């Protein structure tokens, strides 16, 4: 059953690679339901399909079978620029690496999506200052990505993803390239934003310390969900199974 708090509804997702030779079922009949305000980790061994699943949820790739609904929109049916625009206006992304535009400063990177959305300059300015502060990088605003540490880059990426207030933020192994202190920092910031802005976060990870911070943990193996622990807290969500 869906309700008003449903953000993502993924139905019977199948993604097959190398269809001509040996088919690889990167995702095999995955059903997933995400509600507003979740702070959810997707874990699983390498090759279990985490990236593939996040790509499906983010509309970066389309499933061989099944569909993904975001806020009632079936994005699997969207094509070309419609899909790109949908991502622009609804989904925030944090990647493992190559996250930022190297020729733009930290501030410009955070502004980036809002500029693409053609938001008014005053709004952009206010929001960007606020976010730079929230991720603790106000004084690095004028620096290029190459002048920032890996952890700082990821914090800028989180600020950028959050800036236009998307429906949810997908983060594929955001801490994979970070030392444990920076990783902890990044998770602190994500958790804080989740709490303060009620922003939905879905992140994949191998790292047990990161998994421990999640309220809901989905485990993938060979493209299948093998475990889905109920959210530790139900204050934001009213989780129902269909």
């Amino acid at each position: 059953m869906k309700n008003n708090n449903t953000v993502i509804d993924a139905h019977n997702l199948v993604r097959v690679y190398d269809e001509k030779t040996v088919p690889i079922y990167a995702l095999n009949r995955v059903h997933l339901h995400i509600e507003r305000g979740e702070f959810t980790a997707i874990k699983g061994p390498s090759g279990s399909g985490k990236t593939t699943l996040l790509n499906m949820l983010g509309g970066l790739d389309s499933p061989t079978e099944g569909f993904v609904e975001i806020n009632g929109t079936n994005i699997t049916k969207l094509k070309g620029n419609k899909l790109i625009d949908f991502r622009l206006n609804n989904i925030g992304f944090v990647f493992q690496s190559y996250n930022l535009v190297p020729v733009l400063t930290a501030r410009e990177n955070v502004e980036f999506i809002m500029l693409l959305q053609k938001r008014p300059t005053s709004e952009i300015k206010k929001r960007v200052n606020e976010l730079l502060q929230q991720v603790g990088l106000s004084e690095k605003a004028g620096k290029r990505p190459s002048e920032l540490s890996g952890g700082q880059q990821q914090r800028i990426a989180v600020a950028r993803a959050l800036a236009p207030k998307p429906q949810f933020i997908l983060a594929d192994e955001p801490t994979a390239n970070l030392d444990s202190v920076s990783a902890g920092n990044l998770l602190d910031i994500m958790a804080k934003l989740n709490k303060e802005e009620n922003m939905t976060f879905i992140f994949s990870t191998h790292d047990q310390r990161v998994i421990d911070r999640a309220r809901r943990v989905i485990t993938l193996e060979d493209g299948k969900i093998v475990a889905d622990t109920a959210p530790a807290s139900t204050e934001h969500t009213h989780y129902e199974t269909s």
Partner: protein
Amino acid sequence: MLLRIAWRNIGRNKKRSGIIIGAVTLGLAAGIFLMAFYSGMIEQRVRLAIQNETSHLQVHHPDFRKDYDIKYYLVNGPASQKQIQSQVEVKQAAGRIIIPGMIASPSGSSGITINAVQPEKENAITGLQQKVRAGSYFNPQKENSILISEKLIKKLKLGIGKKTILTFQDSSGNMMAMAYRITGVFKTSNTPFDENNVFVNISDIDSLAGLHHQYNEIAILLHSGSSLKVVQTKLKSLFPEYEILNWQELAPEIALTVSVGEQMVLIFMGIILLALAFGIINTMLMAILERTREIGMLLALGMNRLRIFQMVLWETVLLVLAGCPFGIGIALAAIGITHQTGIRFKKFSEVYASFGYNDVIFPELNLRQFLIIMILVILTAVLSSLFPAWRALRLKPAVAMRK
């Protein structure tokens, strides 16, 4: 912001951008200079042709030019000349008798055109006096003098002060012969012309030729070439019985040279631009390839295909524009200097002269052609960015980011 990204992307790979900027500089400098060189050469050829050969306009009996038969003369030569001379646009009008004939010396003979001219007026139109390299120009005191060219004097083994015989048909078809004394030797920049023409004073030949005080050609020099068509039309209505031709009609091969010359410049420019286009395509493809993940990321974040396209396009155009000032600067400097000094082709002066060109070329920049080149360069930049941009558009975010 796309513009900002594009601009900063140029600074990313200094070496690569430098190569393109260098190529644009070189191509533009070479292209503009070559164009100026050609227009200078053509302008000069036209000027020389007008000065030495055709003048701006010529007036004839309508049948005269068919086979230069002397019997087709202008019925009211001197009166017409006066009337033409009184037009404000006309700088000088000179009457001539043109007779095909033979020149003979004890050691040989040669077919030539006898140009019987009014010494003062002729000099005002063609500067004939300046072309006399040895001896002297026509002198009212000396009757029956003739000017012949260096070429011809060698060929006929003659010299200044020597006598030579001209034979020709008069207006009634009788063969005439007359002795003339060589008083001057001339040389123009057009070798074939020199070999085939001699000059005599019109008053020394008109009665003999049966055209007492008459002409079969009036050559007209205008103050400015821009009034050519106006004057031509005016004279046509003034003298409906005459044929009035402008230099383009008199020397269609020169008019052709002008248009062929322009085409040559365009072809050469085309080659330069093609080379440039390949350079740009190559460079931009490399840049796109290097940034596959970045473009994947931009697509993932929601930068649509039009914007990706614009980004690549801007980067290419800015790159090319960055090279323009240097290229234009070098070309202008080179043109500025050579326009003063001229470019001399000592070794080829004979070759040039045989085609009627001067051996010193003064490059001239023509604004219209300059603008065409600028537009072509920018168009090349835009067109050569299309393929790399298209490659960027084909990237799929999920695939690009796995690279």
